[in-house]
């Protein structure tokens, strides 16, 4: 009996320790949760931005060197594909209490500085990041026109030098959903900064 209880406890421990992210084909969780966008001060949800061709969600932030290195490319892709029928939602899930550079005012400044034409939303309490199972910045998700997850991962294969990129994973995924096709590569990875989740009690 004791062994069984111990084993069960261990299994639970193992299950919760693993990052549980959205699986391919999943729909976006918390789709109607409204978040304040630093781009224009309006409240916005996934459902609000959902595009006819697909939807892209990118967890990013102000301070992470990886997010900053890719920022121009993320914003450019967002601005371009928003015009091609893809809904775009950039999300900052960092707890500003821990990460001061991610305060709303700093996000507003960043949105302006980078010429964002798409929402850059405050994820209160990191709720959206938790629901998606996102763990770092930047981390991108692309849903097809039916709302199913078809791409999850990084931006491209060279954050340091845009000129040396060989594989444009996110762009290829966006191009695929615009064309009504499945992306050739569904899952990619890169290093990134851990999302600064609020302390759990």
């Amino acid at each position: 009996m004791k062994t069984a209880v111990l084993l069960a406890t261990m299994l639970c421990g193992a299950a919760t320790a693993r990052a549980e992210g959205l699986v391919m084909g999943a729909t976006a969780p918390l789709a109607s949760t409204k978040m304040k966008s630093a781009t224009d001060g309006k409240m916005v949800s996934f459902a609000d931005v959902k595009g006819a061709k697909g939807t892209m969600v990118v967890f990013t932030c102000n301070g992470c060197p990886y997010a900053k290195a890719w920022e121009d490319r993320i914003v450019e892709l967002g601005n371009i594909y928003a015009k091609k029928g893809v809904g775009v939602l950039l999300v900052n899930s960092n707890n500003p209490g821990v990460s001061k550079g991610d305060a709303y005012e700093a996000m507003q400044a960043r949105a302006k500085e980078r010429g964002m034409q798409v929402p850059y939303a405050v994820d209160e309490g990191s709720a959206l990041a938790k629901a998606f199972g996102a763990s770092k910045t930047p981390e991108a998700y692309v849903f097809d026109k039916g709302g199913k997850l078809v791409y999850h991962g990084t931006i491209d294969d060279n954050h340091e030098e845009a000129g040396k990129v060989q594989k444009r994973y996110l762009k290829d995924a966006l191009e695929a959903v615009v064309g009504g096709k499945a992306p050739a590569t569904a899952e990619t990875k890169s290093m990134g900064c851990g999302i600064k989740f609020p302390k759990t009690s």
Partner: protein
Amino acid sequence: MLGIALAVTKPPLVTPANVTEVLAAIRKPGAQAVLLNVWATWCEPCKEEMPELIRFYKEHKDQGLRLVLVSSDDPKERHEVAKFLAAEGVDFPTFVKVGDDMRFIDTLEPNWSGALPASFLYDGEGKKRRFWPGKVTYEQLANETKQLLKRRKQP
């Protein structure tokens, strides 16, 4: 004479390494347990946990613990990496990651998203025993390495 007795921390050797070279450093014979930590100078939680990692290592290296530090900083920023490590009292060779991120991440641990910091514990045979995404504590390290380090043969 007194001047000679002053302990000077030598700047650590920060060598560029791809994932194969990192694995070779982990699997190099001679350790009872190997702790791998992937970090970066721009990663605040990484810097926060570093003193505890170093302290744990220094208190257990005589029992056969090896610490492999891999910075994910741009290899061009190597001097910054070395500066930080020297200030933390690191006096052994460390690495800065080169090569493809995805290959590095998936080779070390398919369940790792790539978020920093990340720590991994290997036994003396180079078999992975534990993966910690995020910060680790001295207590966690002590608990997990106890069995491995206890096995050390007495000379």
